[in-house]
């Protein structure tokens, strides 16, 4: 993993980013460095600004101040389309597939900005191999799939541009334990090819277990960073985000994923 290198290449640097909707500020100076190939999990209470961080990175929201550097380039002012073409893909929290289109069409939409049809077909074949459901339910309308299946298709779609950085907003929300564990298995798989994953997860235990590193976001600033294990073992984090009743050795928590 990139984290083990002596000088990890920073793929994403968020520095002093402030952002918000309307009058108020949600992010009040967020700083976060993400190394290439790592899975980094953002946890924090509702309203801390976790999703907002992802939006400022993907371009759905422009930061008021501060900089988002991707591979050394300041992308703060770019449109989401321009960021997509640079390899930043966002999988939002709510269902983002087009329900009336088929699974296959939805996955192809992931490469909408590509004009190279041969490349598109090659990617489709690769992605379908990685996510069997894409081939199995190809002609079904996306709206007819279960929540867990839709999430798999969304993950498959996010790979169509061969992105370097994938932003995942609460991928396990609303899924039963089995679907959840298959989503987290897929997330681990995403990072195996050197992709970087910035993950927002309300289900902190599962998120921390899959992540190499994690950051706790509180009231619009990063309050704490560490490896997933460190945060899992941190009594304060455990008390706040893992639920006091579920406290126990980190190993068993990790296994419960």
């Amino acid at each position, binding site marked *: 993993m990139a984290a083990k290198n002596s000088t990890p290449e920073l793929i994403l640097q968020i520095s002093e980013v402030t952002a918000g909707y309307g009058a108020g500020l949600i992010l009040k100076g967020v700083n976060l460095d993400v190394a290439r190939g790592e899975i980094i999990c953002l946890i924090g209470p509702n309203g801390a600004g976790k999703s907002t961080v992802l939006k400022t990175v993907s371009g759905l929201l422009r930061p008021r101040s501060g900089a988002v550097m991707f591979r050394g380039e300041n992308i703060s002012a770019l449109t*989401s389309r321009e960021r997509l073409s640079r390899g930043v893909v966002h999988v939002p929290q709510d269902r983002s597939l087009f329900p009336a289109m088929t699974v296959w069409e939805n996955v192809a939409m992931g490469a909408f900005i590509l004009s190279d049809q041969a490349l598109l077909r090659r990617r*489709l074949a690769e992605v379908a191999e990685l996510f069997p459901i894409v081939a199995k339910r190809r002609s079904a309308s996306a709206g007819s799939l279960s929540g867990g299946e839709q999430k798999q298709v969304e993950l498959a779609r996010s790979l169509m541009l061969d992105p370097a950085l994938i932003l995942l907003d609460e991928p396990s929300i609303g899924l039963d334990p089995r679907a959840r564990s298959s989503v987290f298995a897929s997330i681990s798989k995403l990072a195996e090819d050197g992709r970087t994953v910035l993950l927002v997860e309300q289900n902190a235990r599962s998120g921390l277990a899959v992540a190499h590193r994690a950051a706790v976001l509180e009231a619009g600033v990063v309050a704490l960073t560490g490896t997933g294990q460190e945060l899992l073992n941190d009594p304060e984090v455990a008390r706040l985000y893992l639920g006091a009743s579920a406290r126990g050795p980190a190993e068993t928590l990790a296994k419960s994923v």
Partner: protein
Amino acid sequence: MKRAISRFGLLRVVIFFGLLILVPILGGPVWLLNMLIFTVMYAALSSSWNLLGGLAGYPSLGHVAFFGIGAYAFAIMFQGSVGDGFSPFLALPVVGVAVALLSVPIGWVSMRTRADVFAIVTITFLFITQTLAFNLNSLTGGAQGKSVAPPPFDVSTYDWPFYYAMLALLAVAMGISFYFSRSKIGLSLATVRADEDKAHGVGVRVTAVKLIAFAVSSGMVAMVGCVWAYYVGFIYPQFAVDPLITIGMVLMAFLGGRGTLWGPVLGSFILVPAQEFFAQTFGASELYLLAYAAVFLVIMLFLPRGILPSISDRLRRRRLAAEGDARDAAQLSEVQDASKSPVTSEVAR
């Protein structure tokens, strides 16, 4: 599969336009050609409206404003003389492009709203345009109306150029609709219609593609307005910017099937003759409007998404059911190589 459909589609186009081209040549009662002019006019209007209202999902109720602008543009350009009578037709693309450009800022402002609010904003635009037509006396002649110089066409074939011009505009509108549906523009519009935020998410240029649909649709409607003004010869604000024309083009698209290539055409070829027929049958009474509404209600009751989408839905469901039976039998063998083979075959698409 797709190749076969398009060959069948081409055949349909050739038969449809072939028959319509032959109508004046083969002759027939005078009323037939007259009615066909208005039928084809509405088909062209409805198909143009469909580019925005159907494909992009922005139900404009103000499109007749562009129709009126086109009509007045023609009346102003050709009030004195029309030469041999054919030169005004050559000016059509100029008016079309000019109105399309003019419509861009209007579209940019109005398409910041969606759905019902958008419909209301555009209907406001309609009434602003009508009020301007009434009050800009020096330009439009106000309530007195404005005339286009009569063309020196032979009496026996007087209607022909107008008819063929309308037919050509219908062909262009359908051609654009077909092109959109096969191109990235159409795909972009489909995502815009479904959900603009999701469209942004996959990198669709949402604003640009909405404005393209708005401008092309408006420009097409304006050109139809030009030919209409030229044909009727004398235009008044209440007829050139008539809410009923807006309603007509919208209803016909809804009836035949929004967002489909043939839906607006089918809707026009049902509603315009039906309206004429009921007007004949029930005479001067207002009963014909009731009958007209009844036709619409009955179809909407049984085929709520419009004729073509409802029928194709039903056919597809039947086919899927038939395929389902076959699939159950073949399932065992399919399970073994489920993932790879269908991918490679679809790739050939």
